[in-house]
């Protein structure tokens, strides 16, 4: 069946009407191309969000506060709710049990100086558990210790961008830098993805409060949910939210004053969204493939009809039904396989070319799942074989004399 002669026969027939062959191939190739690009876009979106989640541990709860929008218990709206040390202590000692917790107090645009080099970087006061909660990958030196917090030490851990820009690739460990006019010793450095990760300068929370804040405000708070499942973490969120609202007299419906975000729940939500997107892509892709297969079937039906007399001649010259059948089916398979492969290559090339220009916080690496795409290609080839088989069976059932008389 797969000898050289068969391929020459197929080459003859597919090149006998190049426009028709090209248009059929285009419909199939376009189907695969659209599927590949759509998959790439879906994966790009998923990768972007997953990368965003990868910046912090999934089993964390983030507590933020803002200004009240609703009056409650005799208090007017527009009251700023500020988290303080005592909130953190109360939440972790009386409300929930957590294996890790940290306050998170930021000062954006802080001037940092090393010798004659100057730069502006975000400064953040944190506690030792923060490295675990925010997945900070230490590249050298050490992270902040509990001792640094207790002694309000003037030490810091800096990101890769700060090293590149101020230290010009030299090791910063043990060097002194000036943060907002106060000298700090660099004890560690890290490299982290994300929007601000590599530009951050971390110092002990207590140092931040005493030197730059002047009170015991902690900005926001992040806690670990440990090994709790989604139900357990949701219960933890409800407990923290309820306690903070009660303690700070915040209306239960006030969405802005107290915001407790469960990473695990958000991740589950995004996971559901991406499952939906993947399903959507497959449905669209499936219909595109179906359209391509119908196109091939349609063309093969026309081709077989046009070649009825030729089939009669071939039968008169000794062709068996099997040889006619295989010729038509292999022709359909070749057409779908070659044009599908070209569509696949074009789709992958387009994604590769476009990927560097399409990087965004929530969109990165629009990759192609090759296994899925090759499966789709094989499905299309099967569809091509079936679409060739139906008219081919009809053709071989015609008696030679009927085919010869067909005009």
């Amino acid at each position, binding site marked *: 069946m797969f000898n050289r002669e068969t391929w020459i026969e197929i080459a*003859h027939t597919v090149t006998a009407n190049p426009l028709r062959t090209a248009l059929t191939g285009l419909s199939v190739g376009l189907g695969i191309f659209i599927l590949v690009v759509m998959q790439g876009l879906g994966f790009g979106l998923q990768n972007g969000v997953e990368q965003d989640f990868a910046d912090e541990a999934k089993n964390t709860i983030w507590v933020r506060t803002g200004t009240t929008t609703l009056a409650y218990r005799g208090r007017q709206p527009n009251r700023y709710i500020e988290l303080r040390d005592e909130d953190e202590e109360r939440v972790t000692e009386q409300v929930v049990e957590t294996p890790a917790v940290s306050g998170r107090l930021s000062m954006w645009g802080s001037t940092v100086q090393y010798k004659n080099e100057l730069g502006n970087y975000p400064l953040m006061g944190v506690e030792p558990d923060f490295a675990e909660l925010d997945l900070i990958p230490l590249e050298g030196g050490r992270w902040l210790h509990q001792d640094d917090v207790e002694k309000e030490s003037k030490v810091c851990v800096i990101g890769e961008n700060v090293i590149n820009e101020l230290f010009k690739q030299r090791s910063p460990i043990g060097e002194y830098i000036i943060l907002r006019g106060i000298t700090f010793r660099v004890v560690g450095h890290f490299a982290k993805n994300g929007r601000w990760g590599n530009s951050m300068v971390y110092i002990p929370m207590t140092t931040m409060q005493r030197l730059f804040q002047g009170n015991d405000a902690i900005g926001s708070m992040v806690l670990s949910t440990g090994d709790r499942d989604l139900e357990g973490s949701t219960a933890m969120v409800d407990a923290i939210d309820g306690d903070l609202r009660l303690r700070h007299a915040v209306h239960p419906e006030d969405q802005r004053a107290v915001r407790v975000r469960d990473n695990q729940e958000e991740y589950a939500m995004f996971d559901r969204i991406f499952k939906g997107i993947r399903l959507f892509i497959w449905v669209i892709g499936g219909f595109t493939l179906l359209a391509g297969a119908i196109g091939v079937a349609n063309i093969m039906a026309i081709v077989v009809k046009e070649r009825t*007399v030729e089939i009669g001649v*071939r039968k*008169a010259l*000794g062709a*068996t039904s099997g040889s006619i059948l295989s010729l038509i089916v292999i022709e359909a398979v070749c057409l779908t396989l070659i044009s599908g492969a070209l569509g696949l290559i074009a789709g992958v090339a387009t994604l590769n070319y476009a990927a560097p220009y399409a990087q965004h916080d929530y969109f990165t690496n629009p990759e192609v799942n090759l296994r899925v795409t090759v499966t789709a290609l094989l499905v299309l080839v099967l569809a091509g074989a079936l679409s060739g088989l139906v008219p081919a069976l009809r053709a071989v059932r015609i*008696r*030679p*004399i009927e085919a*010869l008389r067909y005009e």
Partner: protein
Amino acid sequence: MLNLRGIEKAYPLAGGTLPVLKGIDLTIQQGEMVAIMGSSGSGKSTLLNVLGLLDGFDSGGYDLDGVDMSGLSEKQAARYRSQFPGFVFQSFKLIAFKKGGENEALPLFYQKVPRRERQKRAMEMLGKMGMDDRADHLPSELSGGQKQRVAIARALITEPRVILADEPTGALDSSTSHEVMSVLREVNGSGITVIIVTHEADIAAKCDRTIRLHDGVIIEDGRSGEVVEPTANGAGSTD
């Protein structure tokens, strides 16, 4: 060599059947050159198709070299078509996108003859037809006579026992018809049986034997010069 006994065939029609062959008894020996004549609808082309296994029959018996051809499977019939007859059609039936040499060699492809051997034999046969300079021409680039020569070469390339020609000169002018008949006469001279369906008396006259059909029945069978001229309703028409 070819022996038909009581062959009957009818085509199904809405509300009944149309009998085309009504008990044909016929024997043709190896090396004969036979013309089958008859008026339109007499069954002459159907008879040729039955002989060439292009069409089946409803009842009767057909022996080919003593082998019973009734009840052959599609695959067996294809094998016999590939080895035993060579067909020549009125409208040539060349495959439009194949060159002359490729058209000619196509029967060998179905006999699984290697490509190089096919090409060699095709060139030899075209050379015998005086057509070796037309091997690379598409049918659209050939004249009617040239197309029919390619078709005859295609019929001969498998070295068949019999050539079955259905109105082989029907689409040609008289001069080209004469050339084609000369070729068929030469073919017959080499010992190959030639059976020609024709409505032209002068074509039939070039054969050794003429069989006349009327309404599915053989009404005359004899040496070509002895069979009477066709009647007016039988002239100038085909099945």
